[in-house]
């Protein structure tokens, strides 16, 4: 396919992230943060009309709400979705959240609680929020806006907020809920935990990025997925939807420097 339009890295990441929701069926898609939210809307409009979306407040909607949408232009509400129902929905498993952890490790464990020793943190962040419940109840994807060893940490994350594929924190002999990880979208690549024994692997590299570069920015071993390919670029239709969902270009502030989607290969 010939791409006559230019696009940014953020737009490439949104398009890649939207695919996480493509085969979900009828679940609530929660993209938390600028890029995940646009991605969930793009998925709804281009890939999976059965997705349930919310207004981020207390209602479900059939049309994604554009970022910065004026009150008088907001689409109608399809249903009531206060936080109490969000819990009911997530406990039932019919939800797919895309979140932005501060740290991720090789077990797919993620951290938003604090950095350093929990008892006296170096940096207090949000607390575990809903990550523990999300991680054992429904599918979760992740999108991060920097790809380095501070994000993809060696060893384990400082505070395990999301349960992952790690024996250490499970009692012997206990039945374990299935941990379902969708995609992990970064500024360099798309990963998942679909390797042997849930090993992390690179599924696609963004245009101009090498596997070695991804490996260098990752604190744990990464496999190459058997069908490792280049991340698909957004089509003109994808870009039109992205612009409609983010008319003020808030996505331009999501990735440092707002680089182009097709990177020049290093000389």
């Amino acid at each position, binding site marked *: 396919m010939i791409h006559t339009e230019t696009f940014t890295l953020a737009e490439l990441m949104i398009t890649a992230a939207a695919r996480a929701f493509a085969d979900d069926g009828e679940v609530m898609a929660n993209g938390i943060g600028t890029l995940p939210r646009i991605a969930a809307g793009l998925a709804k409009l281009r890939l999976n009309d059965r997705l349930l979306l919310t207004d981020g407040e207390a209602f479900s909607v059939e049309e994604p709400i554009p970022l910065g949408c004026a009150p008088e232009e907001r689409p109608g509400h399809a249903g009531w979705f206060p*936080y109490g129902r969000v819990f009911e929905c997530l406990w039932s498993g019919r939800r797919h959240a895309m979140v932005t952890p501060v740290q991720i490790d090789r077990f797919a464990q993620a951290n938003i609680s604090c950095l350093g020793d929990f008892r006296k943190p170096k940096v207090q962040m949000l607390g575990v929020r*809903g990550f523990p419940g999300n991680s*054992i109840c429904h599918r979760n994807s992740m999108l991060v806006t920097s790809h380095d060893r501070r994000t993809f940490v060696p060893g384990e994350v400082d505070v*395990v907020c999301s349960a992952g594929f790690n024996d250490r*924190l499970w009692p012997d002999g206990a*039945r374990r809920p299935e941990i379902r990880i969708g995609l992990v979208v970064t500024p360099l690549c798309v990963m998942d935990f679909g390797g042997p024994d849930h090993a992390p692997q690179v599924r696609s590299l963004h245009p101009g990025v090498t596997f070695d570069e991804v490996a260098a920015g990752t604190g744990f071993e990464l496999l190459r997925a058997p069908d490792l390919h280049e991340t698909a670029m957004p089509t003109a239709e994808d870009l039109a939807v992205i612009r409609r969902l983010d008319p003020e270009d808030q996505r331009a502030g999501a990735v440092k420097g707002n680089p182009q989607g097709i990177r020049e290969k290093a000389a």
Partner: protein
Amino acid sequence: MNKQKSLREAVRSLHDGMVIGVGGWGARRKPMALVREILRSDLKDLTLVAYGGPEVGMLCAAGKVRKVIYGFVSLDRIPLEPYFRKAREAGAIEVMELDEGMFLLGLRAAAEGVPFAPTRLGMGTDVLTYNPDLRLIASPYDAQDVLVAMPALKPDISLIHVSRADRRGNVQTDGRDPYFDNLIARASGRVIVSAEEVHDRLDLSHSDMAHKSLFDRSVVETVVAAPLGAHPTTAHDAYGWDMAHLKTYCDGARQEGGWDAYMSDYVGADEPAYLERVGGADAIRNLSIPNL
């Protein structure tokens, strides 16, 4: 029957060392007038039970908090609460950090009068590591199902902001989301309500809105008139959060003496003075409802 008291009298009924539940969620519908009155008081050694927002940070900054039980502490648009952060990073407070859903189940257990709620929430995470008092139990039906026994979270008393109340303790809450005010009210069984408006009899004046009642008056001990009493958090559908003020509050956390300045510049002697200092009642009423 008249449960109405002044703000000062209501806060005088609290004691050092109490476990205090707080309604609302993050920067939404927090009983801030009551919180400010606590800031003006000598109360100390409090344990807070909350989906935390600025009330947690302010009470920590004032040195009134021994322990916080929470799923998160955040100002929504401003993700990190600066004074809570400072207190944590100084190791100044005890914490029980829980999954948001575990927190809900703990409240529900207290409301039901059972000692714990069995749940999978928290399994496989450091929530168990850093709350060593949490016990696991095997299901009596299938021992391979190992569950967390989430203990009941039972505040001694709760502070909840509502839209309207009457002197008998009936309440109505406008807005799109009840959050978990009903559970917090039931878990504690004892509530101080701050209300935008206090009426004689809601059944006479606002009968058509009775379905907005989130809990009945049997748990309401005290009613306090607190117009604009959720500021700087939002009180749906009356006024939005005051992000400009919250930014000023957050900026202070980065300055030497910032909290003392916040206390003297804003919290002041009483609520009328506070409202004047943050821009006046009209300005607060014009704060737009947040639009995400």
